[in-house]
């Protein structure tokens, strides 16, 4: 019962962060601010959804997989944010 309530609350939070990230991506005026919004969705949105689903998992192996997925997504998001921002800052990429 408590596990179900935790799942409801945490996955709802995760969905809110994902929607916020998308709205930021669409509405912010500049490349760098959009990158800012995108990384919030990556880290917090995925983290809350993984945490919410962890209460539904049935074994330790599945918990470990959920944690590993979130850690890898964090690593990838951090790296990509740095590299894309650097490429955009140096003016390396042209507008299409």
């Amino acid at each position, binding site marked *: 019962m408590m596990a179900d309530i935790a799942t409801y609350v945490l996955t709802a939070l995760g969905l809110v962060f994902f929607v916020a990230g998308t709205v930021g991506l669409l509405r912010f005026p500049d490349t760098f601010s959009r990158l800012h919004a995108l990384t919030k969705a990556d880290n917090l949105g995925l983290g809350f959804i993984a945490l919410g689903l962890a209460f539904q998992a049935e074994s330790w192996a599945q918990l470990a997989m959920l944690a590993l997925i979130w850690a*890898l997504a964090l*690593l*990838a998001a951090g*790296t990509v944010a*740095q*590299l894309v921002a650097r490429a955009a800052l140096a003016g390396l990429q*042209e507008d*299409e």
Partner: protein
Amino acid sequence: MTLALDLALCALIVCVSLATVAGGGIFRAIIFFITYGLFLAIGWARLGAFDVALAEAAIGAGLTGVLLLAAHGRLRRMRTKAVVQRTGLNLPAALAATAMTGALGWAWFALPAPSVPDLSQSIAQTGVGNPVTAVLLNFRAWDTLLESIVLLAALLGVWMLAREEDWNTPLGPRYHALSGGVLVGFGRLLPPVGLIFGAYLVWAGAESVGGAFQGGTVLAAVGLVALMANVLPAPSISQAGLRIALVLGPGVFLCTGLLAAALGSDFLSIAPEVAKAMILTIEIALSISIAVTLALLVLGPPVDTQGAP
């Protein structure tokens, strides 16, 4: 509720595929193509085909994306302006395509449903529990053998773009990265995790989701990250180790088939007693070859530093 989810997914797939061909620049089409691969992977997951979803996610959203983006960057450096001529609707082609779609739709509804052979007893004899692996490496081993040789032939085709003198130079563009930077750190952190995961996929492919192709693709992708971050030096064609790794998969597969023929049964038949061990051996050899072949396919031919970009 499930129907709403599936309908939303189908609508997304159709919209993304239409957006890919809608024009507006090559780069936009490439990005839409990458997201198309992603949505297709989710679609396969909904259909219960987990192995295909794994392969689609790795290749469609990963390797093909890198290949297309590298090609686009190279075209841009050569200052080639992509001029798309808007010539209007090509009526004969449109009519032929519509007729073909109509014929396929009619055939779908007119033909009787095929009777599915009951394989459940036979799967127990193949030595593996995953039905996809059983089909790929036991029932239809002939197809998989030919496919692995086709991959090798594709790589040879890519290498023919190089000059004879370049066969001793490292493959691909000479990647370099700032030492101590973000890219090098990523190239040091990700590949070990990917190596363990890829090896796990090959091993677990006998019983659950995975297989030689899926494991090989994941290994190729993380190997590519290591190469791009200049953490792994690019090999050259003349290295013996590289050539052995490429030929290992098809070679082992062919040898086991010939061994079976020499021992009295048919070519490529696998006796139930040794099935599991033999399939695992073939899978390990195949995944090494597939990983190296796919990584080299994306890397490209060796480039001479003076002339072409």
